[in-house]
């Protein structure tokens, strides 16, 4: 198989078949279980609610706020993770001093801190960026650390034999070597950022998909809207994950 036709058959077809099976199973559960729409609406009801909520602007406003929180939080957390991971990999002293706090902080669920962070940083954008940033930070820091620690000693010796400077070694050997590991951490981080934003909004927010989920369930009593909001969250997660995979292919390339 090759070319356009090969791509359609090889990639799009399995995805489409998977989606059809998923929606079919959902419909089947609704029909067999006889659930009312306020417990489990059928796919068509959710689909039309999804469409109407996008059409009248209900979802768009909330989705944009959540997306902004995720992206900003991810960028802040990933940059901090890369820097701290690099410094720890470089210095044994920093490793000894910082690592215990890092692990302790990661063992404390950031989500449990959400109410406190809302208290400190308010119900707006900042608190969600902090929550997402904290959640993204750890996997990126650890994967950067591991990536830099596992650079092939043979390549480092090669660099030394060619009198490469500290900076040349970093740019031409260490960073390219660490990239696959770092990108693994970024993949994990991006999906966690979505969770962080939603839970952060539950703890207190003016706007966002997490808030919309609460509203749809509590005051609006609109379960199809709740599902439409969940669907939007899932699509954001899948979309961002897809982007990281594309970036990963681009930066890692054909290494065998």
């Amino acid at each position, binding site marked *: 198989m090759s070319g356009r036709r090969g791509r359609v058959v090889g990639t799009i077809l399995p995805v489409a078949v998977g989606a059809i099976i998923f929606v079919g199973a959902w419909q089947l559960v609704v029909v067999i279980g006889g659930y009312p729409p306020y417990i489990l609406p059928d796919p068509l009801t959710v689909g039309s609610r999804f469409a109407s909520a996008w059409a009248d602007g209900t979802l768009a406003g909330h989705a944009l706020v959540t997306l902004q929180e995720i992206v900003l939080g991810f960028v802040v957390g990933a940059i901090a993770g890369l820097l701290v991971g690099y410094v720890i990999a470089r210095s044994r002293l920093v490793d000894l001093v910082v690592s215990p706090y890092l692990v302790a902080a990661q063992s404390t669920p950031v989500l449990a801190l959400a109410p406190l962070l809302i208290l400190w940083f308010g119900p707006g954008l900042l608190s969600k960026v902090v929550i997402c940033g904290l959640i993204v930070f750890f996997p990126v820091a650890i994967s950067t650390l591991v990536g830099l620690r596992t650079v*092939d000693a*043979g*390549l480092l*010796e*090669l*660099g*030394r*034999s*060619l*009198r*490469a*400077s500290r900076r*040349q070694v970093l740019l*031409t*050997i260490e960073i*390219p070597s660490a990239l696959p590991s770092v990108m693994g951490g970024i993949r994990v981080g991006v999906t966690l950022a979505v969770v962080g934003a939603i839970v952060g909004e539950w703890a207190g927010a003016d706007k966002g998909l997490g808030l919309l989920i609460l509203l749809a369930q509590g005051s609006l009593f609109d379960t199809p809207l709740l599902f439409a909001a969940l669907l939007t969250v899932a699509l954001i997660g899948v979309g961002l994950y897809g982007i990281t995979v594309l970036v990963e292919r681009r930066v*890692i*390339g*054909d*290494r*065998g």
Partner: protein
Amino acid sequence: MSPPAIRLAGVRRTFPATGGDRLVALDGLDLEVAANEVVAIIGPNGSGKSTLLRIIGGLLAPDAGTVEVEGRPVDGPDRAVGFAFQEPRLLPWRDVLANVAYPLELADVARNEREARAHEVLRMVGLDGFAGSRPHRLSGGMRQRAAIARALALGPSVLLLDEPFSALDALTRERLDIELLDLWQQTATTVVLVTHSITEAVFLADRTVVLSARPGRAIATVPSPLGRPRGLEDLGSPDLAAAAAAVRAALGDPQEAGS
């Protein structure tokens, strides 16, 4: 007579061992290699062959003794010395051309110039048709050729080869040995070759230096009976067999020495 390209005198090197002891890898080692000479170093496992090569290449410092390359004391890696390792050590994210140009890039040679030079050395090792390939697309022999091309990129006057073909099958190895002879005819560099193969040593080198078991020191030197240029036909010659027997005798235990 011109001064030796490489001169080692009284070289000693130890490594930390368990229990706070130190393992003596090399002790009292003397070696002189003339300019344009090819010297093979052979010895049992643990005789410090690779350590010796790394000391000449400035990758390891000796604990005692003097090391000079072209009259200058060695105090670190030198760009006039090319090093090819046992493994190809190619950067997997770069194509062959960029790998071979890598030493030139580190030396801040302009892009046009370094690519032209990389193509030139790739032609010498017969790999120019694969300039755009990633290392993992190449066979083991081709990868090792690329590594040797890289070691030649800076036009070194001394080439250090650390068992460069030991991971290859016998046929590929023989072919690369012959290519190495051609390469030497073209570049006329001084070569120090560490090998486990007695035949390879005698076939390639002007002189084979036999190291003792740990601590390694030079216990015998067997001159090659073959003239230059050499070719495939020399591999089966009785002269080569006689010299190989002399090396084997110096090594003492034929089982230990291998091929």
